[in-house]
């Protein structure tokens, strides 16, 4: 019989399969060197989905406005690069901190609501920020976005046209953030979050400060989303209004559900499948791409309630 301490220590250890997975993420350098810019987009989206997983999959907060934090991070990094300095790591930290600050401020509103009002409020706050950025064109460039800067290198590695440094940078940041998220999930705090998700009235009854926990989780997720936004700015050297859009919030939700919420790797797997499929199928007409996404959503809800990873997990259990 293990005690609580041993339980958490066992959970925190990396499973051999996980090590294999992370080694596989290095494959694009060798196998598909022409698709490295797609690979870095995937890594960024995966980080964004991972941050949503923290609040949706673990804390049970359904958000249709998560792009707000992604956009705050992207614009912060863009403004720093345009007006102040071009060193990316420090601006990554600042972007994350600022997104976290916005997340902490809004978390006080978010934790007071549930169900439809919660979904509507997250969506409303996201739309509000989108419109604000659109109107404040002095600062954000409005509909044209921020342009006219070029982040040259990270830690001395030049961002070249093949996107090697960009992918390495995005992947490294994703990995570090993943370890942080993993540590958070497998801590007593992470366990409390799952408790709140499963039964929101019982957790306060056994002495867990529900709202404080939810606020903390929301802030951490906002920081990670902001870092993902800043990564996008650094690797593409532009910021568009799209980073704040409702479409981006909806896409990341689809990605997470597709992969499987509440299991850390869900967002990453979902991002890989979604982005590769979009790259291959969307082609000339993006409208028909949404047909497939729609079909996929319907199928996932009806046949794979826990996403692709959940389905694989169920198959694995059945075979044992």
């Amino acid at each position, binding site marked *: 019989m293990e005690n609580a301490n041993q339980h958490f220590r066992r959970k925190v250890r990396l499973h051999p399969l996980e090590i294999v997975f992370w080694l596989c993420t290095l494959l694009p350098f060798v196998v598909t060197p022409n698709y490295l810019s797609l690979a870095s987009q995937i890594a960024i989206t995966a980080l964004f989905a991972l941050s949503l997983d923290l609040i949706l999959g673990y804390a049970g907060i359904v958000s249709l406005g998560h792009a707000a934090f992604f956009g705050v991070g992207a614009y912060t990094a863009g403004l720093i690069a345009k007006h102040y300095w071009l060193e990316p790591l420090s601006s990554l930290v600042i972007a994350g901190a600022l997104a976290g600050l916005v997340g902490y401020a809004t978390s006080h509103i978010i934790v007071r609501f549930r169900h439809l009002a919660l*979904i509507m409020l997250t969506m409303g706050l996201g739309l509000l920020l989108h419109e604000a950025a659109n109107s404040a064109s002095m600062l954000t460039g409005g509909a044209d976005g921020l342009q006219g800067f070029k982040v040259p290198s990270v830690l001395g590695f030049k961002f070249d046209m093949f996107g090697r440094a960009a992918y390495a940078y995005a992947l490294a940041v994703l990995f570090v953030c993943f370890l942080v998220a993993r540590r958070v999930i497998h801590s007593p705090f992470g366990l409390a979050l799952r408790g709140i998700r499963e039964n929101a009235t019982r957790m306060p009854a056994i002495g867990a400060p529900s709202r404080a926990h939810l606020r903390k989780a929301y802030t951490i997720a906002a920081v990670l989303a902001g870092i993902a936004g800043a990564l996008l700015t650094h690797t593409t050297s532009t910021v568009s209004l799209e980073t704040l859009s409702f479409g981006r919030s909806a896409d990341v939700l689809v990605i997470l559900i597709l992969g499987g919420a509440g299991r850390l790797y869900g967002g990453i797997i979902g991002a890989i499948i979604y982005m590769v499929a979009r790259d291959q199928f969307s082609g000339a007409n993006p409208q028909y791409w949404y047909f497939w996404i729609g079909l996929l959503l319907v199928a996932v809800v009806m046949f794979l309630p826990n996403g692709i990873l959940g389905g694989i997990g169920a198959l694995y259990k059945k075979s044992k």
Partner: protein
Amino acid sequence: MLSSLAGVLFDGFAYGMLLFLLSVGLSVTLGMMNFVNLAHYGFALVGGYATVTLVNRFGWNFFVALPLAFIVAALVSVALERSLFRRLYRATDLDQCLFTIGIAFIAIAAFSWFYTSEPQSVPAPFPRDQPIVAMGMGFSQYRAFLIVFGLAVTAFLVFFLEKTRFGARIRASVDNQRMAQGLGIDVDRAFMFTFALGGGLAGLGGALAIEVIGLDPSFALSYLLVYVLIVVAVGGLGSIGGSFAAAAVLGITDTAGKYYFPWLGSFLIYLVMVALLMWRPAGLFGKR
């Protein structure tokens, strides 16, 4: 200034009536079955495209096509409810959201396949739309028609729900589904009927909206879905009066905002929504 205020109120109210038609069905079905139907706007698309086809291809009069828009949208909504949606009544909010957004995506792609993604239009319903002159300024005939029509539908719905036996059954099912079932009310049938009525009204709204906001598939998702959800959430679930008030406030605020503060865009409308929801999370007239 004063005359422009009257114009803004008039246009805003007409716009609000459109939003009311588009959203009242969603509000009632949400209140009744707790079913979050993000594909509700799809029924408006069905009504809109049915009208466009009848008027442009078969040369029907716009006003004759309207009842058919209602019937087609109602039939489509019942078919969807019976075949797919009813399986999800016990699912979580999130699953319902995702499933119906999936249906909405499919509908949008299907409509752009058949009708291209170009905005569609019909010949003006009032061929020489002479403004009605009152108080020294002109009011569009079509918008006046919208207001009268919206008020008539509201009056009909209120009468139907408050005064008829079937309406009483629907109200009972909204208030307490289990109790209603215990009293022998066929909640399933009442719900099917409400769903058809709501879908039909949305179809009517979609047809009437062609003249005012146009009709193209992707616009539906990014723009009107958001507006419809705002009306439902702010008005309160299952409340006709709430939807009416919320739609009117939203229509007037939006029109006034775009007229007086064009640089703010839709900022004002979202601000109003967030503020109202924070003040009353269950909506203006919501009970739960």
